[in-house]
């Protein structure tokens, strides 16, 4: 049974190590605006991106934007549920030009937000592609945690993932790793 991401890792007895494979990793040695995974093979059932991110924006709480197949049209929707340590809030956006993980990136030194993002059935050409993501950054007295979902209203198989920040660039040591999960 293939294992999918955040939740299914609970099914310990069914975990098959060979079903989860590392495809590519980007670890930044310098500040960079965009991280791209291209030529993603179609040999998996699902994709997962895991990583740590920080922005040079100068202020905290910036979102992580995700484009699929270099599509910058208004073909995405996304929703999130987030907590800021005092309140919980929900948001939804339609006809956006990217998927989005809310409040994922801090700017404070040494503190990197964590993200775990699943792209489901990414090679299926009969339906739109969906994403779910968990993102958070705590800063010892401040921070945000968010659940996120995204939809790309296109039936093409996903071959490229492009990550940018709502504000600023990814700083050195930011890392995103792409994994494939076999079905």
């Amino acid at each position, binding site marked *: 049974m293939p*294992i999918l991401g*955040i*939740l299914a*890792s*609970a099914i*310990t007895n069914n*975990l098959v*190590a*060979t*079903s*989860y*494979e*590392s*495809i*590519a*990793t980007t670890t930044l040695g310098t500040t960079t605006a965009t991280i791209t995974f291209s030529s993603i*093979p179609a*040999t998996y059932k699902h994709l997962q991106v*895991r*990583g*740590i991110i920080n922005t040079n924006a100068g202020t905290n709480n910036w979102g992580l934007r995700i484009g699929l197949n270099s599509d910058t049209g208004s073909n995405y929707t996304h929703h999130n*549920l*987030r*907590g*800021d*340590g*005092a*309140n*919980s809030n929900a948001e939804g956006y339609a006809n956006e030009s990217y998927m989005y993980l809310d409040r994922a990136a801090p700017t404070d030194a*040494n*503190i*990197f*937000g*964590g993200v*775990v993002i699943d792209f489901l059935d990414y090679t299926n050409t009969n339906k739109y592609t969906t994403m779910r993501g*968990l*993102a*958070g*950054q*705590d*800063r*010892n*007295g*401040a*921070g*945000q*945690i968010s*659940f996120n979902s995204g939809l790309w209203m296109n039936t093409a198989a996903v071959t490229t993932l492009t990550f940018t920040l709502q504000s600023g660039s990814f700083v050195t*040591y930011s*890392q995103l*790793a792409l*994994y*494939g999960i076999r079905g």
Partner: protein
Amino acid sequence: MPAGATYEPIATTTLGSAQASITFSSIPNTYTDLVIVFNGNSTNSGSSTNGMRCKLNSDSSALYSGTNMAGNGTTATSGRYSASTFFEGGEISQASGTPTLNIMQFMNYSNTTTFKSFLIRSNVAGSTVQTQVGLYRSTSAITTIELSRDFGTNNLASGCTATLYGIAAA
């Protein structure tokens, strides 16, 4: 090109009797991320939940903090803790409640440059669902993770199980 299979089980502990804690030590630095899956209850005789208290590298300094969001079937809330001597490993169900399922993800745990962030999903079907981002303000690689009972004298109940996985990036 794919670099090969990963997401490997490193160690599993299943309690044969009630214990104060479960500890994974001598964690190899050969992975990128760690995942712990915990399932079980505390010996607290109630039907609610308590927070797990956890530590990294046996460090009891006030270096832990976290921001969480939770839902109890009626309301959604958010809270945080800071400058704590432990991190909250999610909720743990009391003895007569639904067993807890907690999944902890320690991101980039072995680098010695950044502070360590972790994401936790805590699920107690009978009472609450929670997620948390935590911070350990140390640049040390994580080599030991201790999952402890809630406050007071209640232990992790017999049958609690915890599995540590390693995920290696290409």
